[in-house]
């Protein structure tokens, strides 16, 4: 029986369940010090003077400052604009200035209170609509929007606003570092992308690749929040460790993590949509503005993905998308599950409901009429040739949720005199591209390997990290199924840059489809070698051991490595921003039924249904876990989560005040998979991680509209906003 499509046991599950998996802060490092970070407290200006309290016992501490940086004081990413430690110019109110290490974490933090920083303040730019610094812009044009609009029967305009969102992984960002006697650096971190960290550390310390070893510790959630920020915190730990001559751990407490690390980009999105009387979309004119925060970080690529999903999963002959991401004096925004798409898809989808209302048709019918199908052409010119499960997902969702019946029942409930609540059903649908955008995968040129060790062990080697999604287990399944082995006979190496090839970052819904494909190729190469050497793949440990003797020829292992190659027929042009933006898209449709209390305006989600085409499902239980988990994050985004900013800093950096859903805020969620396999995905698989984040926002907003008859084009849809929408109270 093939290992794919079955619920294999989670590889690292028993260690996690017994509390013996080592997260960064659990990693034993004898003699280690704890680092703390002094941060700016103004959003914009200059540091004039730093004074140390002479009465404080500084001899107990190790202090690292910008002048201790051997290489470049920049955290390299897309641009090298962000300093590792601020020297003079302050661009946001949580920038690191200097680092203190002490054997006691509490003492290290207490020491910060004894440093005085004097500033010259400047007027900060906090409103992205007033920013004049543009990090990146995109212009997409297909057909003729002006003509399309002039020929439309109905034109609907809408403005949509999306807030910051905090990842709220339950393990905060953290890193540990020590230096070997030979001058090489070892970093252990809670991170998604070991090779990103390696690249950043090389530049900061002037080291070669071989001199920087990055190891992923067990990682307590990421969601994009540990894509790029670990570059910073790992470098801080390394800088302190160098100065101290001892290992150093830097682990943020919740408040610091919320204040200083990245958030989802806030956005303001405007739509002008032209439709024919029969519901056909004829023109989409879309303007996207995102707030990048103080440094570039990943903003250009977040904007790119947002732009490429801005039309929603619909075919429209005339499209114009103008998008830009700008600088403000707030902490940089970064990657967060969905990467710009949840923002633009919220606008696109709720706009469809507005159009439906304007036309007087059911939102479902409008979607049916326009949803992407095989052969459809996207705004950037991509023709969808295969694996387009959008309509299938929509119909499966409608059927499973009993959409029409529930909508009628809710409408009837709302007409009842004395009903204690308003009820509504909303629908949304989304596409989500798997893998890096455009030519991203070509530049990454990822590599993954499968090896047979001298001891007869089949091992998968990749830098793709496990932080809950099931990467490790899924790789073992793909390798085992490719080799025709039971999954128990395949092991997966811990991501450690000294051991595993660079399979790229663990982001962008790329691990299963892109890296999984490499794992499959490498496994097939091993299979061919085994067949050649032994006539077949041995299905037992003993057989593998015997084959290993022949294949390894005295070496510790025989390794088969696969490298990403652009599939034939896939083309993207960076210069014109046209072509195949993604190899393949996954699709999801969601129906949500909710209830709004007439006394308190509190919203209770009664039930949710998601149907998804993620291609072949490698691990049904984990895939369902990804969908439910992503949907609940999306429900938090839609209804609860509100990062309050004042003077460029988060005013509620606590889990008490930035509230995420609890078990009681979470409805029953039905998940249906409707696979439209992708021929080049491993066993037909596509991506799943981000997709479920795209659908809850618009489905909830649509359900609120159904319940109240009012559109609230802004998240989160709090009771306060509902009260204001109904009564004009703020």
């Amino acid at each position, binding site marked *: 029986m093939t290992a794919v499509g079955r619920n294999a046991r989670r590889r690292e599950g028993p260690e996690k369940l017994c509390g013996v998996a080592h997260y960064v802060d659990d990693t034993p490092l004898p003699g280690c010090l704890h680092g703390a970070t002094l941060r700016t407290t103004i959003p914009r200006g200059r540091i004039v003077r730093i004074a140390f309290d002479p009465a404080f016992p500084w001899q107990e501490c190790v202090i690292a400052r910008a002048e201790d940086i051997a290489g470049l004081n920049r955290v390299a990413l897309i641009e090298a604009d962000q300093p590792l430690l601020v020297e003079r110019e302050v661009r946001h109110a949580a920038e690191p200035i200097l680092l203190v290490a002490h054997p006691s974490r509490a003492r290290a933090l207490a020491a910060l209170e004894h440093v005085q920083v004097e500033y010259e303040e400047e007027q900060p730019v906090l409103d992205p609509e007033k920013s004049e610094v543009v990090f990146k812009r995109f212009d997409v044009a297909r057909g003729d929007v002006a003509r399309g609009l002039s020929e439309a029967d109905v034109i609907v305009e809408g403005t949509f606003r999306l807030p910051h969102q905090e990842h709220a992984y339950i393990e905060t960002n953290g890193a540990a570092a020590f230096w070997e006697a030979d001058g090489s650096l070892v970093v252990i971190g809670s991170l998604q992308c070991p090779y990103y960290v390696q690249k950043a550390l090389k530049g900061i310390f002037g080291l070669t690749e071989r001199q920087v070893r990055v190891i992923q510790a067990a990682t307590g959630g990421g969601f994009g929040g540990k894509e790029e920020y670990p570059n910073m915190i790992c470098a801080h730990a390394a800088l302190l460790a160098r100065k101290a001559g001892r290992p150093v751990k830097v682990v943020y407490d919740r408040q610091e993590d919320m204040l200083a690390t990245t958030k989802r980009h806030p956005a303001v999105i405007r739509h002008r949509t032209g439709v024919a009387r029969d519901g056909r979309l004829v023109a989409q004119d879309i303007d996207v503005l995102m707030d990048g925060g103080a440094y570039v970080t990943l903003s250009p690529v977040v904007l790119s993905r947002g732009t490429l999903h801005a039309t929603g999963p619909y075919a429209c002959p005339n499209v114009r998308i103008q998008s830009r991401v700008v600088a403000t004096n707030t902490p940089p925004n970064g990657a967060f599950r969905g990467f710009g798409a949840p923002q633009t898809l919220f606008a696109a989808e709720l706009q469809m409901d507005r159009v439906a209302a304007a036309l007087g048709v059911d939102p479902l019918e409008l979607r049916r009429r326009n949803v992407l199908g095989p052969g459809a052409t996207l705004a950037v010119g991509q023709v969808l040739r295969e694996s387009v499960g959008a309509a299938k997902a929509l119909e499966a969702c409608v059927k499973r949720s009993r959409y029409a019946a529930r909508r009628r029942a809710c409408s009837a409930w709302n007409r009842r005199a004395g009903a204690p609540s308003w009820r509504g059903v909303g629908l949304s649908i989304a596409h989500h591209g798997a893998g890096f955008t455009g030519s991203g995968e070509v530049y990454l040129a990822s590599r993954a390997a499968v090896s047979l060790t001298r001891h007869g062990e089949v091992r998968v080697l990749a830098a793709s990290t496990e932080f809950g999604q099931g990467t490790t287990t899924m790789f073992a399944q793909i390798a085992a199924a490719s080799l025709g082995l039971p999954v128990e006979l395949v092991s997966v190496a811990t991501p450690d840059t000294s051991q595993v090839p660079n399979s790229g970052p663990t982001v962008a819904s790329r691990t299963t489809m892109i890296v999984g494909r490499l794992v499959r190729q490498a496994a097939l190469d091993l299979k061919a070698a085994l067949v050649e050497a032994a006539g077949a793949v041995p299905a037992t440990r003993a057989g593998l051991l015997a084959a290993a003797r022949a294949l390894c020829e005295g070496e510790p292992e025989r390794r088969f490595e696969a490298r990403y190659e652009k599939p034939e027929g896939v083309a993207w042009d960076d210069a014109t921003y046209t072509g195949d933006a993604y190899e393949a898209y996954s699709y999801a449709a969601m129906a949500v039924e909710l209830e709004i209390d007439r006394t308190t305006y509190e919203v*209770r989600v009664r039930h949710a249904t998601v149907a998804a085409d993620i291609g072949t499902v490698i691990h049904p239980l984990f895939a369902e876990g990804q969908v439910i988990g992503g949907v609940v994050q999306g429900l938090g985004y839609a209804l609860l989560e509100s990062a309050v900013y004042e003077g460029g800093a988060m005013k509620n950096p606590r889990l008490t005040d930035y509230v995420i859903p*609890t078990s009681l805020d979470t409805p029953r969620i039905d998940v249906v998979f409707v696979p439209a396999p992708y021929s080049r995905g491993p066993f037909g698989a596509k991506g799943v991680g981000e997709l479920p984040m795209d659908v809850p926002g618009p489905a909830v907003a649509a359900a609120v509209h159904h319940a109240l008859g009012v559109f609230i084009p802004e998240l989160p849809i709090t*009771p306060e906003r509902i*009260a204001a929408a109904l009564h004009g*109270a703020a």
Partner: protein
Amino acid sequence: MRGDALAARLLRPRSAAEACRLLARTPGAIALAGGTDAMVAWNAGGLAGRTFVDLSRLRPWTRIRANRAELTIGALATHAAIIDDPFVRRRLPLLAAACATVGGVQIQNRGTLGGNIANASPAGDTFPPLAVYEAAVVATNGTARREIPFLDVFAGVKRTTLAPGELIEAVRVKAPRRPGRQMFRKVGTRAAQAISKAVAAGLLWLRRDGTVEELRFALGSVAPTVRRLRAAEAYVRGRRLTPEVVGEAARLVAEDVSPIDDVRSTAAYRLAVSRNLLSSFLSARP
């Protein structure tokens, strides 16, 4: 974690007298009960170098005792213990309901009623029930006791009228006559583990002719301290609860509350919901 254990003291008195003495003579000392508020501040670095006076050895203060229609709840009784108490469940159901909305089980297992009151948060969930039950707080300074009407314990946001060295020893609550109608409602930031944006408790007695004999209605989180809606209560007395009367009572809510905008909600919302809570209580069908 910002609290430095080496730079703080934890004292563990064996008697109330000793506890009061320690609190009176140690500047800035903090009485520690279940720790569910104090330790949060400590972890955030807010109480560095302070002395904590742990009350957990005052075992008798954990007791809940019923004497006919009166219940004495020791200051150190946990929310979990109050929820489980048969007298509370039967005769003071609004208090049981309130305790069940405080945090998750972990907080209910540690947080105490006395600590909750002494902390004097405007959002204290048990306060509206205690306000409508017209409870009394028994305070001691180690040598003398006094009884303080519940509402008079609060002086402002996080401030009480207790003297330095004075501790809450118990809360006394008389079970009311069986009310015609009663409600507890917490409006939090989410469905569980939430801080209140508004929290309400109400008791209503009607005469046979349908006129109001007595209304008691209290709201939390809409003023610096918990408030009884005196104006609305007085207005409805003797009146039939017609839509007009309910509407006027709701309008009068503003006389007794003064909600603000903060990171959790807005003044406008809090006022609107306060009015709705009262009107839905008064309009409910028997």
